[in-house]
């Protein structure tokens, strides 16, 4: 059968599954719907006088930065975190596809499509958020904006995949033993930031996507798409031509799987007492192996910069500090939720640590201490920025103390939920979310005594933590 007749070779993955008759029907309906909707979209937004419709620029910018911008940032951070977890599987995907009877171009197309469809919720959520501007912008403008946002998403994903292939190619030719376990957080960060930047530019300068300029942008996107497709195909061919695959398999077959960073080795020897606490050494080495320090640092910087820019939109420094606090709590929530995985069954930590002479308390501390230290560092950096913005030391100190207290509460609830739910990650997350919800309700009801409530929650969580059992304690 010719390749283009096989739906698996050109359809998005969510259409691979259903039985043939259902899939074919769905494919036909989807294709018809696509053609109809493109025609409608073109008619409604990009023809005649509608092509020139523009929103009130001031109102648009005001609503965008007040309502839509922060959820977009949260969406992008979530996308970034999710993408960091998924990148290493691409070499395995290639090994799998390579075992199937696929032509080179089919394999390249599948590789691109499955890469682009990994996060379908990102363009969907972005579209929903952009439609929130309907209160101040005409529908034709929003349709044009959404169409271009979707096109930009597809282009950036293709560019990201191509760049990842180039980086892998470089690594495979070198002497690094870290391929394919590591990924390139900077490339993904670039993709995420470009995806955020382009809609913002079009909102700041709406004239660029109206009138003749709109079709110019569409044409440019088309040209870039054709170029990117050709480049990615070329790079994919070079990538599969190297011994990348053999190398990835060789890593599994008895050879060391991950490279330890030299600086981590030096630090672990120089700063940590070798005999007194093997737990710390293990953790330090493990952290460096995961390369999560790098991505955490980048994400932290990203968060500090964005939250400060948003907060400083307010004239009153008091209001700015309140917004900073709100954003910090959200950040702390995500950090704790992610770090709970370190006490999960999927991680090697409990099993690894229990092969050494350490206590339950040391194990909990090994997760708890890095979490609270990191959150305190972020709070401190934000407080310094508040002082530099003219907020005064007293305001900054109050901000830091409150942030640290809240972080403490989050961390204690997070660790006790992880231990309570072990080895079931979903159960642990449910416990954490219900704990946070109960805390929020209690604080709302007993707002006057919120500090007492928080201290009590910390105390009770610590008590349950001391009495709990994890792994084979």
């Amino acid at each position, binding site marked *: 059968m010719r390749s283009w007749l096989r739906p698996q070779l050109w359809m998005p993955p969510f259409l691979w599954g259903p039985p043939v008759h259902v899939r074919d029907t769905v494919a036909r309906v989807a294709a018809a719907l696509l053609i109809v909707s493109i025609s409608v979209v073109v008619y409604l937004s990009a023809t005649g006088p509608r092509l020139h419709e523009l929103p009130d620029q001031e109102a648009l910018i005001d609503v965008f930065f007040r309502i839509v911008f922060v959820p977009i940032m949260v969406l992008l951070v979530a996308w970034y975190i999710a993408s960091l977890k998924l990148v290493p599987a691409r070499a395995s995907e290639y090994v799998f596809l390579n075992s*199937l*009877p696929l032509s080179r171009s089919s394999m390249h197309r599948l590789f691109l499509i499955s890469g682009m469809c990994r996060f379908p919720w990102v363009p969907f959520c972005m579209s929903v958020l952009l439609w929130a501007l309907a209160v101040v912008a005409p529908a034709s403008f929003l349709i044009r904006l959404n169409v271009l946002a979707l096109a930009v998403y597809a282009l950036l994903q293709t560019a990201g995949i191509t760049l990842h292939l180039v980086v892998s190619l470089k690594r495979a030719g070198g002497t690094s033993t870290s391929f394919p376990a590591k990924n390139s957080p900077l490339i993904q960060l670039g993709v995420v930031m470009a995806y955020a930047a382009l809609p913002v530019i079009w909102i700041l300068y709406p004239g660029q996507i109206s009138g003749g300029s709109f079709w110019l942008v569409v044409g440019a996107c088309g040209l870039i798409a054709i170029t990117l497709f050709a480049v990615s195909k070329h790079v994919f061919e070079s990538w599969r031509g190297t011994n990348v695959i053999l190398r990835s*398999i060789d890593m599994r077959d008895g050879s060391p799987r991950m490279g330890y960073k030299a600086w981590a080795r030096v630090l672990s020897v120089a700063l940590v007492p070798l005999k007194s606490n093997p737990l710390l050494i293990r953790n330090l080495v493990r952290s460096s192996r995961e390369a999560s320090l790098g991505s955490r640092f980048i994400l932290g910087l990203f968060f500090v910069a964005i939250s400060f820019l948003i907060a400083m939109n307010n004239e009153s420094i008091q209001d700015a500090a309140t917004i900073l606090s709100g954003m910090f709590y959200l950040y702390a929530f995500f950090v704790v939720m992610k770090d709970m995985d370190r006490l999960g069954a999927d991680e090697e930590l409990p099993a690894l640590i229990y092969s050494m002479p350490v206590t339950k308390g040391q194990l909990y501390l090994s997760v708890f201490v890095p979490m609270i230290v990191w959150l305190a560092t972020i709070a401190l950096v934000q407080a310094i920025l508040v002082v530099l913005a003219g907020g005064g030391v007293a305001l900054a100190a109050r901000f830091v103390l409150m942030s640290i207290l809240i972080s403490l509460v989050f961390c204690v609830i997070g660790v006790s939920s992880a231990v309570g739910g072990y080895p079931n990650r979903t159960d642990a997350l449910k416990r954490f979310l219900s704990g946070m919800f109960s805390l929020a309700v209690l604080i709302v009801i007993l707002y006057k005594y919120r500090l007492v409530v928080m201290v009590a929650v910390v105390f009770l969580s610590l008590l349950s933590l001391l009495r709990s059992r994890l792994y084979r304690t």
Partner: protein
Amino acid sequence: MNRADKPLMSIEDIAVSYGNSPVISGLSTVIEEGTLVGLIGPNGAGKTTLMLSAAGQFRPVRGHVYFEGSDVYEHNRDFKEKVGYVHEDPFFYPYLTAEDFLRFVVGVKSVPKGDIDGQIHSLLKLVDLWAERGKVTSALSMGMRKKLAIAAAMVGRPRILFLDEALNGIDIESTYRIKRSLRDFAAAGGAVILSTHTLEVVEKLCDRYLLLKKGRVIADLRAGEVTGQRGVGEGGSLERYVIRMLSDPDDVDLQ
């Protein structure tokens, strides 16, 4: 000539390099129809590399691999229609269910339309995943994922199966069923190449053993030929033979 002597695949003087260091050098062998070949060797011996090269997935720098007389790298797609491969660490699209994943593989291989549902049903039953067919692959346990990979490799009724540590981590009942179906597969004229470190599996399942060391075949025996080999004696086990063959001449304890 009986079926077991009829060559299905012939590997001729292949060499594979990894960077500057050779992984396989000058390896030749023939895989006959109806045989179950056990590939044994220490870590880094080149087992996976040999299987990948023989399965048309990694072109050797020298030599040829022929399947039914035609070069597998000249007619790569046609050859892969007739091959099933289970990787040591199999890949799955995490958002597809077990059944959907098989349907994806079915769609890529040329399975006749009328045969699709029947094949998927029988394969899921074979690996005891029928009850789990609606679960997404990311929710399956490691053993279940291995079973699904075996089912995916058997899609399209291949002529030759490559199993890289495929039976590790699978429960006893399923292993028994899979082993039985592998024997049936071979009896119907197929060939199985199984790489594993579990010698009991090789001893009970395979009728030919290929022992690899540093990218070369150092022993090629039929089942039953182990007994009487030098240093093994009458009634000696495959384990004893492999240890004797792999051990350093100076290592008195192992010998």
